[in-house]
């Protein structure tokens, strides 16, 4: 049994998966298996994976089920007691797996170990932006508001801990679900939050920026409303499971979620949407302003600037933006 399994969900990722797999095969922890779950790709993803000749690598194919469905299939096939997720366009620093395995082995109460990330662009170049989340004392409220786990390639988990949130929906005949496949977005946050609300395992981060997380520009603002609807559906689902918790934390969490979407609208240069979202998050709760004043004010300022100057002038004021952009992306 290998020490750890890395699950790589892959859907039409011919352009990036080779680099991802090279980063996983270069890990300092050699005793691992890498499971690529091909989620019904229509490009030549499979050929590229097949060109790797390494006994640690194997492919599981399935008809398209989405990211949660690929993660679930990967967990179901994993041979190890420790499982990490790495999206097929992200990269891992060579020490990542080793560091998380050490963390989990030294802390038997930790169920999910994660770390911060550097953001890279479509060509794999560093953008200078980082995700440096809170690492300790993580509660369900932190996940609902700010999701410290951050992205889909940050977490390395203990299998027995994951199993505490597994179930088999009535219509499912192949394997269990750990993540809810009815969510095509927000599926990771739904999973982490349900994990925090229904199990007693600790979620904890380790220092270091061990994931290179790729940001893809374009198409950002088109999804904003749909993403918000999905987030609200997650809230409705988990409100039934933990009503007291949601009642207490929802207004602030909703404001944080709308602020996050507002930043995405700004990044996509959608002035009217970013203004509308600014108004909505302020009407939900002022807590983000109190808890994170710099980030909140710079988001509001950028939204105002964008709508005052228009796209062209806004783009010209790159120097001005750079400092703000580091904060709001």
């Amino acid at each position, binding site marked *: 049994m290998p020490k750890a399994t890395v699950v790589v969900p892959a859907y039409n990722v011919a352009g990036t998966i080779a680099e991802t797999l090279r980063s996983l095969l270069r890990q300092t922890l050699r005793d691992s298996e890498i499971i690529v779950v091909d989620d019904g790709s229509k490009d030549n993803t499979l050929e590229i994976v097949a060109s790797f000749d390494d006994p640690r690598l194997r492919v599981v194919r399935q008809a398209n089920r989405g990211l949660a469905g690929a993660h679930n299939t990967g967990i179901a096939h994993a041979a190890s007691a420790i499982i990490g997720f790495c999206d097929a366009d992200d990269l891992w620093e060579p020490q990542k797996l080793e560091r998380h395995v050490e963390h989990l082995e030294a802390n038997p*109460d930790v169920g999910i170990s994660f770390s911060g990330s550097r953001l890279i662009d479509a060509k794999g170049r560093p953008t200078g932006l980082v995700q440096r989340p809170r690492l300790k004392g993580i509660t369900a409220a932190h996940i609902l508001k700010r999701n410290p786990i951050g992205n889909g390639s940050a977490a390395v988990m203990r299998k027995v801990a994951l199993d505490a949130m597994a*179930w088999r*929906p009535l219509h499912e005949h192949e394997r269990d679900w750990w993540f809810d496949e009815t969510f095509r977005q927000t599926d990771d946050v739904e999973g982490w939050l349900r994990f925090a*609300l*229904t199990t*007693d395992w*600790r979620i904890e981060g380790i220092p270091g920026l061990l994931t290179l997380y790729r940001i893809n520009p374009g198409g950002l603002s088109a999804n904003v409303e749909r993403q918000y609807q999905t987030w609200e559906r997650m809230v409705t*689902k988990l409100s*039934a499971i*933990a009503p007291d918790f949601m009642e207490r934390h929802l207004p602030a969490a909703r404001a944080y979620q709308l602020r996050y979407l507002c930043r995405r609208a700004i990044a996509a240069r959608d002035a009217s949407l970013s203004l509308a979202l600014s108004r909505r998050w302020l009407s939900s709760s002022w807590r983000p302003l109190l808890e994170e004043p710099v980030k909140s004010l710079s988001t509001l300022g950028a939204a105002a600037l964008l709508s005052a100057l228009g796209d062209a002038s806004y783009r010209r004021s790159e120097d001005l933006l750079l400092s703000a952009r580091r904060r709001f992306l």
Partner: protein
Amino acid sequence: MPTTIAHLIDDSSPGGVNRVLDHLLSSPMLGRIGQHEIVRVKRGRLSTPSVQADIIVSHLSVCWRNLPLLVGLRGRYADRPLIHVEHSYSQGFVAANVAKRARFHSLLRTSYSLFDKVVAVSEGQAAWMELRGLVPAGRLVTIPPCVDLAPFLRVPSKQSDTTRVFGALGRFDRQKGFDILIKAFRDARLEDAELHLIGDGPELARLRELADGDPRICFRPFTDEPAAAIASLDLVAMPSRWEPYGLVALETLAAARPLLCATRDGLGDHLRSGAFGVGGGSVSDWARALEAAQRRDWSFTLRRGRQAALQAEQRFAHRWRTLIEEHRRTTGERSAA
């Protein structure tokens, strides 16, 4: 001279504990192995009660306030076997109620280490204790509780195989998840169905609000005849958010009524006795399960449930007898030394 066994309970022990103790005291199978007595202890008291019995069984709630009492018991009765039965805690309990989890796990580890044996009330609870290293190796035993099942075993089998009256019974408390059940019932596509909620408790007003005057949902008062209550239902649902064991599940199986239950904690134990498990715990998981339950043919699983209930009575007596006998021997060895 027969072995004497003192059962310690405090005022905050859950209601089911008293029923299980009644059964322990009145069971002819257990009466033969020793003389049981009940010692009531005020929660949080610092002085240890005076106990003459050969073996001491704690049904006390483990909490910071009771820790001095537990430590005192170990000190004062260092020569007597000390057994603790964990009626209250489970993974689901900690997840839903405890903010400082590491601290709480420490409380449990410290408290359990004071006892010669810790009794888990279900396989699910025992698996959690073992996985999280809460009980020192070799000191954990599992004895699912039991009550007098005779009134439930006498409930006539269902006359028709239709599932029309869905029901749930117990304390109206957030733990029981009846709010999820009401939402799911209203969301499900069911034919000619009713939902009966039998009990009382702090959630009553909120549950009524959720029912929103739906004429198919009725609230029935608490009854001290649970067998008759279960007999009036076509199916019993247990959507509990946490449940170390779940006596209602056992009673439902004994009464040969279909049982839908959450799969968490101790409720998972009932699946092999014919209960239909509802994983996930969301409203839609429960709505789909209610629909499936109405279409399902239950006749085979109901027979299995009744057999399992009969075995549960024997298992309860047998495991307690084994545990007491094992410690009676160590008492003998200690006094001989």
